[in-house]
Every structure is written in C-alpha cells, then in structure tokens.
C-alpha cells in the first residue's frame, strides 16, 4: 500500500500526466459546432458599418489559459473586418480591481494576434489602460467616456485618437465584449440596456450566474473556455489554444469522475468494514 504522505502527490502527478497527454498524443475527439458558438460568431459578423468595439478585460494575466483563447479568437475575427473597412476598430480597457495585472493579459492577447502590425494604432485600435474604480469607473464611462478616460495607456490624449472620435458615452459603441472570470453584475447594472450589444467571454463557473441576463437579452451572447472556444476557432478558421486545450480537458474530466467514483467506493467499503 502507498504511504499516506505520498498519496496526494501521486493523485496530482497522475492529474498532470492525464492533462498533458493529449498535447503529445492528440486523441482526435470530434468537435461539432453548437448554436452558442454560432450565435456569438454571427453577433460579431453582423456588426454595422463603422462600428467601434469595446473590449473590456476584467480577468488578469493569471487567467491567460482560461480567458485568453476566447478573446484571441474574437480579435482574430475582428481584424479582417477592420482591415476590410466593415468596422472602424477595437478599443481595449480594463476597470478591474486587479487593473495593473489585467494590462499584461491585454498585451499578451494583442501580441498573440499581432494587432500592432496588422492594425494602425490610434486609427484602428487603442489601449486605454486601467481605469481605477471598477463600478464607479464604469458608471462614469457610461455617462461621460471622455472624462473617465482622458488618456490612453501610453499617455496620448483621447482627442488625438481618431478611433474615439464621436465616442462620448458608452452607448456610442456598437458592441461591448466583456472578458471576465467573475460575475457580470456590475457591468449589467452600468452598461446593460444602454444600447450596445454585449457579448460575454466568461469562465464556465460564471455561466450559471450569467444565464439570467442571457435569457432576458441584457447580454446577447457568451463564450466559455476550451470547448466553446474550440468551436468558435473552427468558425473563425484557425486552430488555436482553445482547440489544443480541448482534448486535455476531456481527459481531465474523465479522470476527475473516476477519482470521485473511486473515493466513494473506498468510503463505503471502509464503512462496511467498520460495521
């Protein structure tokens, strides 16, 4: 029998092995596209001419693997639309409590999609940086965007950024994409029903909390990590990190279910033995 002090480590090491195995030996698990991914894709595809998209990032760099791939895929769908002139551009902001840690996530997403070489800064995209205050900042952005965000992340005055010409309040954006691994209550309170469509890139554990807003049309679409992101990547036309992580997730979940079954079997056997 394995010593008790090593049992936890063995469970974790097997967990790591099971999670990494599909990266080395892909299993070829079929992956069909569901309506949720199609709705999200079509919501972006159907943007009117000249739209400006606001991508608000609440997650921080620690959520790169969970929240990064979905927004990377979103940006990859948006870039050709901007280059083709269908939409005007993307603006990145963060009002997160962990704002300084959200900026590296935005920068990493921008690097992964090569935004700086594909789009012109100031005309087609802008990084407005961290706006401290979370919900109070969101409230101010809703009423007076230019007062809430007077400069971008690099210190350039907002009046010198052509992409934000005509943007006075949040309702002047045509689409808001919120990247968050926490609940969206504050965003719904301040930005919900103001005019722009809202799409949510959320963690799977937050989906249940977001469902009431989805059902009422306050949030118009959602994207969750890995499975849904891999479907979305298929629609956008590339195979990214979401697809790479998808098979790993399947094996991990099978392993967790087996652990739960094993734990219950051992528990009831021990109980019977004591009787």
């Amino acid at each position, binding site marked *: 029998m394995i010593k008790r002090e090593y049992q936890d*480590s063995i469970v*974790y*090491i097997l*967990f*790591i092995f099971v*999670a*990494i195995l*599909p*990266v*080395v030996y892909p299993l070829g698990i079929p992956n069909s596209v569901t309506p949720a991914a199609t709705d999200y894709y079509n919501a972006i595809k159907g943007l009117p001419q000249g739209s400006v998209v606001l991508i608000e990032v609440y997650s921080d760099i620690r959520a*790169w*693997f*969970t929240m990064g791939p979905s927004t990377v895929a979103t940006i990859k769908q948006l870039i050709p639309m901007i280059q083709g002139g269908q939409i005007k551009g993307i603006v990145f902001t963060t009002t997160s409590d*962990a*704002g*300084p*840690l959200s*900026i*590296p996530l935005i920068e990493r997403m921008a690097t992964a999609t090569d935004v700086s070489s594909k789009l012109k800064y100031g005309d087609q995209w802008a990084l407005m*940086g*961290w706006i*401290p205050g979370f*919900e*109070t900042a969101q*409230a101010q952005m809703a009423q007076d965007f230019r007062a809430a965000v007077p*400069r971008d992340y690099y*210190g350039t005055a907002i009046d010198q950024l052509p992409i934000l010409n005509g943007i006075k309040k949040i309702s002047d954006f045509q689409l808001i994409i919120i990247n968050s*691994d926490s609940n969206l*209550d*504050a965003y*719904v*309170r*301040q930005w*919900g*029903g103001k005019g722009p469509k809202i799409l949510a890139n959320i*963690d*799977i*554990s*937050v*989906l*249940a909390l977001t469902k*009431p*807003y989805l*059902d*009422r049309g*306050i949030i118009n679409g959602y994207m969750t*990590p*890995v499975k849904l992101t891999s479907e979305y990547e298929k629609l956008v036309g590339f195979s990214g*990190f979401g697809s*790479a*992580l998808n098979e*790993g*997730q399947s094996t*991990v*979940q099978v392993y*967790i279910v087996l652990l739960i079954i094993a734990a219950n079997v051992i528990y009831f056997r021990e109980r019977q033995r004591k009787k």
Partner: protein
Amino acid sequence: MASYVEVESIFYAAIVLMTWSWLYKGDNPFYKIIEHATIGLFLAVSAQGVIQAIQTRIVGPLTVGALFPALPFLMLGIFTLTRMVPKLRFMSIWVIALMSGVGTGVAVKGVVIPMIIKQTIINPWTSPNIFSNINNVLVWVATITTLIYFVYSIKREAFGGVVRVLAEIGRIFMMLGFGVVLAGFLFVAGINVTGVGTYLVQYPGYYVTAIGTVILIGYIIWSRNHQKK
C-alpha cells in the same frame, strides 16, 4: 542564437518544474524561490499600476495647474492613510463612508431594471420545444423553493409541513448549483495544468523537462545512498 520566444519557453518550463517540485519534496528551495518571486512580481506590477494611476490622474493635472478634481482626491487619499495614526484615524472613516456611499449609490442606480424587474419575467412553459419548457418549469421551481428556504419568519411546520418540503427542495437546488460552481473551479484548475504543461512537452521546454528528470533521479539515488550510510 535562440530567439526570444525560445528563451521565454525555456524560462516558463523551468518555472513550472520548480513550482511542481512541491509535489515531490514539499516546501523545498526551488519552490520557495518561485513562491517569493511570484509574490514579489505580483506586488511590483500592482505597485507600478498604482503609481502610474496616481501620476496620470493626480500629479499630472496638478503640475499643469488643474487643481480640481485632483487636489480634493489627493486630500482624500492622504486622509485614508491616516488610518495608520491612531489619533487621526477618524479622518479615514469619513473617506471610507464616502466611498461606501458612492459605491452603493452607483450600484443601486442600475439595479432596478436588469436585476429586479426583468428577472420577474417568467419564460413560457408551453413553447414548441419540450426541453425548453421543462427547463423553464425547473427554473421557476428552483427560484421559488430557494427563496422559501431563506424565509425564516415562517415556521417550517407551517401549512402542514409544506414549507419544510419546499425548503428542502430549495436546498437540493442550491446544492446542485454550488456543485456546478465547484465543478467550474476544478475545470479551471484542469485548464491551467494543461496550459502550463504544454511548456514542458513542446520545444524547447522538453529539454528542461529532461534535465529536471535527470536531476530528480540523481537526487533520489543520492538521498537513498546517503540514508544507507
């Protein structure tokens, strides 16, 4: 000459192995180095962001003579720090009260329509999609019974024990809900393990993994020989 991406991948692979060394030896020097580096980096990045925010929103406007609103906010910020001085602590309480009041007011302003009025709308139970109908009925039952669970002003034995039964159903729905949330957290753990694990099994990280494995085997052999002596 290795490219920046290759050097970065080697660095990440080394960090992952040093972090996961905890699984073998618990609190070992490699793990301690990474633990302290992570906390230090977290604090450094946070401090950089805070200093930049103060610079752009307070110092910048003050240096060009725009006293309002930078000066009042600077004063409020200083009052917050008086919390560390027992005789002046009362000044920080006013700032906290102001922030709490503003935060609550801002939140309440937007809560009525999306979080109260719109949530009272019931989805149809008789649509063509039977699964949607079942789902909507379940949502209605879960909402009502969960609310009843938290009504403590009515005894559970009231109305012939019906309240107890409904509260119990609500409790089961809450258990299911919390189970879903917990499963989500486990899911996130799995994604992160897969994500960081890719650095160990892809080029050039697998060289780091190989070196780490050799070091580990060498250490195990050495420590066993050392114990025998």
